[in-house]
């Protein structure tokens, strides 16, 4: 059942040779074009780059897209990038869906181009299917307590505490031992400058 109001754009990323080297990206792009509610499907060398993001923004405006599917890397890596890109183009960032065709496909099936291409199509299709049901969401804003807890009073904890305190934040430094100083206080001299540790 196709929803007339849905206008999905699919952006297939080559990721240089990271995806295009193991997957037929043009075949995937054409396949995506035929999926339900997809009005445009395009390919880019690096979708996360400025030209790549500009193309998404331009297409959102030109084609009046209301859902975006980026088929590239893991959402754990670039979901924030593309969400920002959507927001800049005036679309709610939650109308983005990523198809992880690099970590989940091209990089792990790099010796079987045909199977990898087939799987990529499936991953894109699943992403489009999910995108059709995405709704705009509002992120909650919460206040922040301007204080920080630093656990451990060795050299790392001391440095972090001083930097944070010197930038104006209240620091609570918690140390298990009776004194701060940690391992470094037990050293005599330190490399490479051979100066004292305390």
């Amino acid at each position: 059942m196709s929803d007339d109001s849905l206008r999905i754009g699919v952006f297939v990323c080559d990721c240089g040779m990271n995806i295009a080297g193991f997957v037929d990206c043009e075949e995937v792009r054409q396949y995506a074009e035929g999926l339900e509610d997809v009005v445009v499907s395009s390919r880019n060398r690096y979708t996360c780059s400025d030209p790549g993001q500009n193309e998404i923004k331009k297409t959102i405006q030109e084609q009046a897209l209301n859902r975006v599917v980026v088929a590239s890397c893991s959402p754990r890596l670039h979901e924030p990038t593309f969400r920002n890109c959507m927001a800049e183009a005036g679309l709610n960032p939650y109308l983005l869906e990523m198809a992880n065709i690099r970590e989940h496909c091209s990089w792990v099936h790099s010796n079987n181009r045909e199977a990898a291409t087939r799987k990529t199509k499936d991953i894109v299709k699943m992403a489009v299917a999910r995108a059709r049901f995405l709704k705009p969401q509002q992120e909650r804003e919460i206040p922040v307590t301007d204080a920080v807890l630093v656990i451990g009073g060795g050299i790392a904890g001391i440095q972090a505490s001083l930097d944070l305190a010197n930038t104006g934040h209240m620091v609570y430094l918690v140390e298990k031992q009776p004194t701060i100083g940690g391992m470094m206080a037990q050293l005599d001299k330190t490399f490479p400058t051979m100066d004292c540790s305390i």
Partner: protein
Amino acid sequence: MTDVGRHPRIKSMTLSEVEDVAGYIGNFRVKVRKKARYVNENECTACAECVDICPVIMPDEYQMGFSSRKAIYIPFPQAIPSSYVINMEDCLGNNPIACGKCLEKCDKRCIDFDMQDEIIELNVGAIVVATGIDVYDPTELDEYGYTRFENVVTSLEFERLICAGGPTDGHFVRPSDGRTPKRIGFIQCIGSRAYKRGHPYCSNVCCMNTVKDSLLLKEHYPDTEITVFYIDIRAFGKGFEDLFNRSKKMGVRYLRGLPDHIIEDPDNGNLRLKVENTTAGRIEEFEFDMLVLSVGLEPRQDGEQLRHILSLSQTSDGFLAECHPKLMPVDAPTRGMFLAGCVEAPKDIKDSVTQASAAAARAGIILSANKIKLEAATAVVDKEKCTCCEVCVPVCPYGAITASRSEKIPAEVTEAMCAGCGTCAAECQFGAISIRHFDDEQYMAQIEAALEENPRDKAIVFACNWCSYAASDLAGTSRFQYPPNIRVIRTMCSGRVNEKFILHAFKLGAPVVLVSGCHFADCHYIDANRWTQRRMDRLWNRLERLGIRPERLQLEWMSAAEGQRFAQVMAEIEEMRAKVSRQEIKNTKEVLRKRESKKKRVTAALGSSA
């Protein structure tokens, strides 16, 4: 150290431990136990009167046991706070018959035997974890005789012996007879780069530490003969190669090869060893006055408890896992928490300081913001559908849901407390709870799309964002190859995986379904994955009753670091998939269709009777 002590915006709490952390980014509530010091640290002037009178003599931990301290003591002269502390395990106690001498001696009345532990509650917006490391204990490497031979010491003991503030005032002597050793050997990679005993990783600092030690010796005692036994010398940092070359120029001998055991001459305490010089291809024999074991670094033994309190995960080497190894190396996977220093991996002082400054800057971004945005994915209750059954109330790891069966009050979610794991939505039998941005129809659509063509060729894998999905990403970045027949569906938590998703996949012809999530202790939603386990147990029983082989539903726990395991599991899933016959899939589809139409009939009958 002193800067910390006098900074107006740093409240430092020693002898203190974090006992509990609740809340979320921007709004953590922390409980700290400040243990009794038995000395008022603000009043104590470290005058030493109490120390002089204390009759108890114990080994001094700071000096690695080479000298002694009293039961009331200051760890070292520059300690912050500059105050004594009583170790109550050593102290004879405030009993007039036994002791209590220090109490009488202290004119300022700083000593208080009745001092209690204090619980301090803090509200903070961010947390920096900088709990450091332990040093490898070479006792298990018995062939090197660390516990048997007095003149075999660790590199940390060496530090105390050569330090001007050490037990010998910097006069370097060997423990057995107090003579200054003339021939000293260093053995590298003790507890590092070892697969059987110790740890497989490189401890990062020991090569340069030995280079430094050799230079200290040569500066103090130019005639000392020094030999360093190594596997590889790793002098990779700025200024490191220079230092290494300086050491060689000053006559330190570096020999590629580790001795397999050490023999002590009982007459003079000297140490003898044979070693294969692997560069020259010959066996060489040595006699030393003293041997230094260059010990590696390891995760803190007592780190587990804190790791659970903070709900952080660890990499396979036992150090804390970062959010992303390259792009977010100081962020912990839990938002608002940051890692600094060796707790993340062994590193030297410069790297610890660098990482600490980075962590401070990252934490500062949060603290400097007036408000921050939270993920929109939270639970929403459809009050029309809610039957007030209360099932969702106990499953919420955050206690964010209230409802009352007796008073007919439908479920209500406190949004600020909801982290969006989705366990409530998966447990609700009436479809009354949905998760924003991760709702049922989105998952159903993904499953349908995946199984539309050739379902028999595919296995459906549910992966939780923080662990198993991260493991699948790591398998990708590591290029671990596995069969191309799996289709991954991301959930924020395995607790989100509703029974109906799984049954829907089977109904559409999926041969195998895998549900995967974090190891129990690592769940990013406290313990939501315990409900996953219970749900799967329930579902396995139900599948059995329906005549569907329960093995076709698999459950796996894996951490973000287990990329290789992910690939391995996928290969196993593929093997299982290939074994499911067409007939079996056909039978499953039929059983589930019948069950569905029966359910529909019952619902319709109930509807008409109502």
